[in-house]
């Protein structure tokens, strides 16, 4: 109403056309956008619009999450910092661990949380979700769902098997059991036979299943799942005996599992999965972490190809580090590395050159596998009461 009248003499930034204002405000962190909603009605309307919120989420930097112990006498890390590698900014985000993360939403225990809006909701009002595998967006429906495993109620010859389930967040439906992962075929050359051979196999309801994934102890999933093109890539090992790295893929649309041949990484070396240029990638390094090899999954053939080698600036790391070991991790699509050592977190580029460093006092920073990309998009599951 009278606003336009009062402002017409202005030729300053306050009278920027809305289209341009949109371009400016999508570049702000979530907290600043919330403050902008108090500036005036026009700004409040613009920054509450869904198209704005989607563009805002897309513009947000990927924040890497670093856990540390605020005080030395604590047994568990009790502080989570977010680090933006582009701006070099660092700020606290939470006082607890995240169990999963996707599109600005995180799972903490049995609840879903948006750190940007500080909204909470239970994952389910009916069942208690334990043994979470991952959080994802089901593309066809836009629903957010979790994959988890629990003790199966199906009668079987196997002692106490587990089953995998999918649960839609905010729905009152029961979790949907997913057919258990099939056995990993053992490579022919190893078994000296023309027939595919399986080991550690059980049978449930007439279907062969991979025991390592469904037995009572449950599998060990390493790191966070990598979400790419509707697939969830899971790096797992068995609790007992063989220590081979394995990659299990969950197709979030078809809701089925398949095994991907793992990259040629020595079982005793550390392997980490991540995404690079829209492809699945894996890094491998020895315990001492002085160098790292990067493999990329080829889209057409599903074969792994060696990409490049990174030499870590060992002397430089030693200069900062006060005691103990260090752990390096590829954290960005561009191949940037974060190196955690006692008292410091170091940021290196893909060639291993030191770019920036963050002080962590008398503390051991740990790069947790989940990342956060802030989002102010509203979700119905937060609104239910």
């Amino acid at each position, binding site marked *: 109403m009278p606003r336009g009248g009062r402002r017409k003499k202005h030729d300053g*930034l306050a009278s920027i056309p809305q289209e341009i204002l949109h371009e400016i405000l999508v570049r702000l962190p979530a907290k600043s956008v919330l403050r902008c909603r108090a500036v005036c009605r026009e700004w409040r309307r613009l920054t509450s619009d869904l198209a704005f919120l989607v563009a805002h989420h897309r513009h947000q930097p990927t924040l890497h999450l670093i856990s540390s112990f605020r005080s030395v006498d604590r047994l568990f890390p009790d502080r989570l910092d977010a680090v933006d590698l582009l701006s070099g900014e660092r700020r606290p985000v939470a006082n607890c661990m995240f169990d999963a993360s996707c599109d600005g939403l995180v799972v903490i225990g049995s609840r879903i949380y948006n750190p940007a809006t500080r909204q909470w909701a239970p994952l389910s009002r009916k069942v208690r979700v334990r043994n979470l595998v991952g959080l994802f967006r089901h593309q066809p429906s836009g629903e957010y769902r979790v994959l988890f495993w629990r003790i199966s109620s199906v009668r079987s010859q196997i002692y106490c098997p587990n089953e995998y389930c999918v649960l839609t967040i905010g729905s009152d439906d029961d979790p949907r059991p997913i057919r258990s992962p099939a056995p990993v075929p053992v490579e022919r050359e190893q078994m000296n036979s023309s027939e595919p051979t399986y080991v550690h196999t059980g049978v449930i309801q007439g279907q062969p299943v991979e025991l390592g994934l469904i037995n009572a102890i449950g599998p060990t999933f390493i790191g966070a799942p990598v979400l790419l093109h509707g697939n969830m890539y899971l790096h797992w090992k068995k609790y007992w005996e063989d220590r081979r790295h394995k990659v299990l893929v969950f197709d979030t649309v078809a809701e089925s599992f398949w095994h991907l041949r793992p990259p040629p990484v020595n079982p005793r070396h550390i392997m980490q999965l991540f995404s690079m240029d829209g492809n699945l990638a894996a890094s491998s390094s020895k315990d001492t972490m002085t160098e790292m090899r990067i493999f990329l999954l080829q889209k057409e053939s599903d074969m792994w190809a060696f990409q490049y080698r990174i030499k870590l600036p060992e002397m430089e790391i030693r200069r900062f580090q006060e005691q103990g070991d260090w752990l390096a991790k590829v954290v960005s699509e561009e191949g940037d590395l974060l190196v955690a050592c006692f008292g410091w977190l170091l940021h290196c580029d893909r060639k291993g050159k030191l770019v920036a460093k963050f002080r962590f006092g008398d503390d051991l920073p740990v790069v947790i596998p989940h990342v956060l990309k802030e989002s102010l998009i509203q979700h119905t599951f937060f609104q239910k009461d």
Partner: protein
Amino acid sequence: MAAPESGDGNNGAARMVTLISSDNTRFEVEAAAASLSQTLQLTILDGGGGGGDGIPLPNVDSATLSKVLEYCIKHAPAAANGGAPNATAVDRAELERFDNEFVNIDQSVLYSLIMAAHNLEIEGLQSLVAKKVADMIKGKSPMEIRRTLGFPDPTPEEQAEMNAHMLEYGWAYE
């Protein structure tokens, strides 16, 4: 990359175009620099702006246009390399330094620059100025934002709405 229909025919010499500001000042620049503007690119590809013709820009005054062209001339070589994947870190650092210096300007100039970058559709400049204004807003309270950007004082009604919002999202002001 050089336009084959270039009128001047001198091989080696870059093709030049003339731009005319709203206050009738003529600027002669390399076609490659002016082509950073999506708006001008088509006209230039069609052979416009050469010779005595010149392209009139009725929305951009000469002070702003000279500033815009300063940006285009600096960024044209990197843009010609297709975002310069082979640029050295030194080149990139130099451009970054130039950009930071470039937007370190008075608000009224910044405003004219935003409007010109938008009208001429110069992508890099658009995001540079948007980032600059975003940095001016970041971390400020609503009242400080209003003052920084030159809003008039809020009416009592606006003030009440502002307070209500600040109360509801108190944690966003910590």
